């Protein structure tokens, strides 16, 4: 295994900068998710790390070796493709054996390693099948077994689960994570699904228009995003905008919002605050006020969406909509059209410098 360093990497296609000065350290043995909307450069970055493509500038280091000019077949990486890319003319076992046999390993050791790899992905009995005789989830497992049987230094996956339906995808997430832990391989996982990134990875890097906008453990990014973009892209967030006051912002109607997380800002400029919808408490305006939690806004419920274990209230405040998630704890629900008071603590408020 090895860690991977990407240092100041840029790659352009014609005039279009697909990657612009990206630097990321992928820790040894870690599970790193590259998250970003479609077209943000995730695949481009993964292909540079794999060696299918080469950076215009910058360095890529696997372990201690600078590999930015090394072609893919010499990089000792494992790759899982979105559409599996299994060899249709070979059996499952031969697919898995491919990487070992091009290296000229002996038949006996190939057979043993293939069996181990297929057992690891729980496909021990299907070695003789052809890829077209497998289900989507099984093909995914074969692709994974094929990628890891050669003991690569790093495992690269490009939206590997996006072709699966929801239930299977969740199963495979768990499975993939188990296998990754078991072999302890450095893993770089591309996805545009924020939930997937949150649940699976040790670290997340968020890409936007070819730039790395934010990076860190999922909880850190979720709890204190550094930009409006990452606040809204990773999870749901309410964004309030106003004039910077030093420890928060003042909204256009004069209401002060106090934040204890995020960047310190100078007064005078513009700034935003991000608040997660589940951090906000909601009460009818007529009810006796709860213990004040610092920040408070008034509004009217314009819509309520019931989603089983929780409900989402859309609260209209001077033309802006604030989302509030409430767990269904059995408390009486608030009807649409009611005036409400929203409040939340400064600790739940993240100050973001003006976008």
């Amino acid at each position, binding site marked *: 295994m090895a860690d991977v360093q990407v240092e100041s990497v840029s790659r352009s296609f014609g005039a279009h900068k697909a990657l612009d000065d990206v630097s990321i350290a992928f820790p040894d043995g870690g599970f790193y998710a590259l998250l970003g909307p479609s077209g943000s450069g995730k695949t481009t970055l993964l292909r540079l790390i794999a060696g299918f493509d080469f950076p215009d500038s910058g360095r890529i280091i696997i372990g201690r070796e600078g590999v930015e000019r090394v072609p893919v077949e010499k990089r000792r990486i494992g790759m899982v493709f979105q559409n599996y890319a299994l060899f249709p*003319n070979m059996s499952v076992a031969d697919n898995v054996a*491919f990487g070992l046999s*091009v290296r000229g390993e002996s038949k006996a050791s190939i057979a043993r390693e293939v069996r181990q790899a297929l057992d690891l992905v729980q496909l021990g009995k299907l070695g003789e099948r052809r890829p077209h005789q497998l289900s989507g989830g099984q093909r995914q497992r074969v692709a994974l077994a094929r990628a890891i049987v050669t003991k690569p230094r790093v495992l690269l996956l490009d939206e590997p689960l996006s072709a699966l339906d929801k239930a299977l995808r969740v199963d495979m997430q768990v499975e993939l994570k188990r296998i990754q832990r078991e072999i302890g391989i450095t893993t770089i996982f591309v996805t545009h699904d924020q939930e997937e990134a949150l649940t699976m990875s040790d670290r997340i890097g968020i890409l936007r228009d070819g730039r790395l906008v934010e990076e860190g453990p999922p909880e850190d990014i979720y709890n204190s995003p550094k930009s409006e973009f990452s606040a809204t892209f990773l999870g749901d967030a309410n964004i309030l905008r106003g004039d910077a006051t030093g420890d928060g912002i003042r909204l256009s109607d004069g209401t002060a919002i106090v934040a204890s997380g995020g960047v310190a800002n100078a007064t005078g400029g513009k700034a935003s605050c991000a608040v997660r919808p589940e951090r906000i408490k909601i009460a009818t305006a007529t009810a006796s006020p709860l213990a004040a939690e610092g920040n408070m806004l008034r509004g009217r419920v314009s819509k309520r969406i019931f989603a089983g274990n929780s409900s989402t209230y859309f609260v209209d405040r001077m033309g802006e909509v604030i989302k509030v998630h409430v767990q269904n704890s059995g408390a009486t629900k608030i009807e649409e059209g009611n005036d409400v008071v929203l409040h939340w603590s400064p600790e739940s408020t993240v100050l973001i410098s003006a976008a």
Partner: protein
Amino acid sequence: MMSATRILEGLGRFYIGLLLAFLYLPIVIMGLMSFNASPFYQLPFEWTTKWYEDLSRNTQLLAATWNSLEIAVITTVISTLLGTAASLALFRYEFRGKKFLQALLFPPIAIPWLITGTAMLIFFFGIGIGRGLHAILLGHVALALPYVIVVVSARLQTFAPELEEAARSLGANQWQVTMRVTLPWIMPGVIAGALFAFAVSFDQFVVSYFLSTPGQATLPVEIYAAIRKGFTPEINAVSTIIIAVSMGLMLITARFFRFGGEK
């Protein structure tokens, strides 16, 4: 209703029967006549193998047959190798003038052989290649190449390029990728291309006629010359042998390679 479909089905069968008869009857008659004693196709049929015995002594016709086979086999090998390699290059790489090059592949298929033959004759004379079996071979390779490229390229269109990438990511070099992943997939196309190349060469009359010299001719040219001197049933005999052999080859190929099927 039932009877209507029956009638349609019957008509369909009748039509196919007619078609096959139209295609094969002349061949069957030729085959039969090669065993008929009368040199003028006269009936009643009288069994003989005389024409085959004559043929075995007709050194000119036999030599031409060997020439034809030799040229067709060499043409097939060369044009299949070159054509497959060219198709792979066109599939894998982007380069300037690629579209133009691909567009240039089609005209040689459409240009009448008479014109191609004349052009080759003039050109070969101009640069000193001249006429003879070597010139015929060169000409045939040039004629067959576009067919191979078109057929193999069509098959490559169904190939997923990620398969090559997957193979490379597993450590395979270019040669291993080609031999173990790409070629197995396009094999039906390569075989079809090879059959085309063989047929283009073995059937070739016009271009061969232009490029042959007396004594250095292929079978079709020799048959033509023989017919002009006066028809003999030996020609039926040699034709029958060739048809038997080539149909046998076709059947074997069709049996071992499922064309079009299995995606």
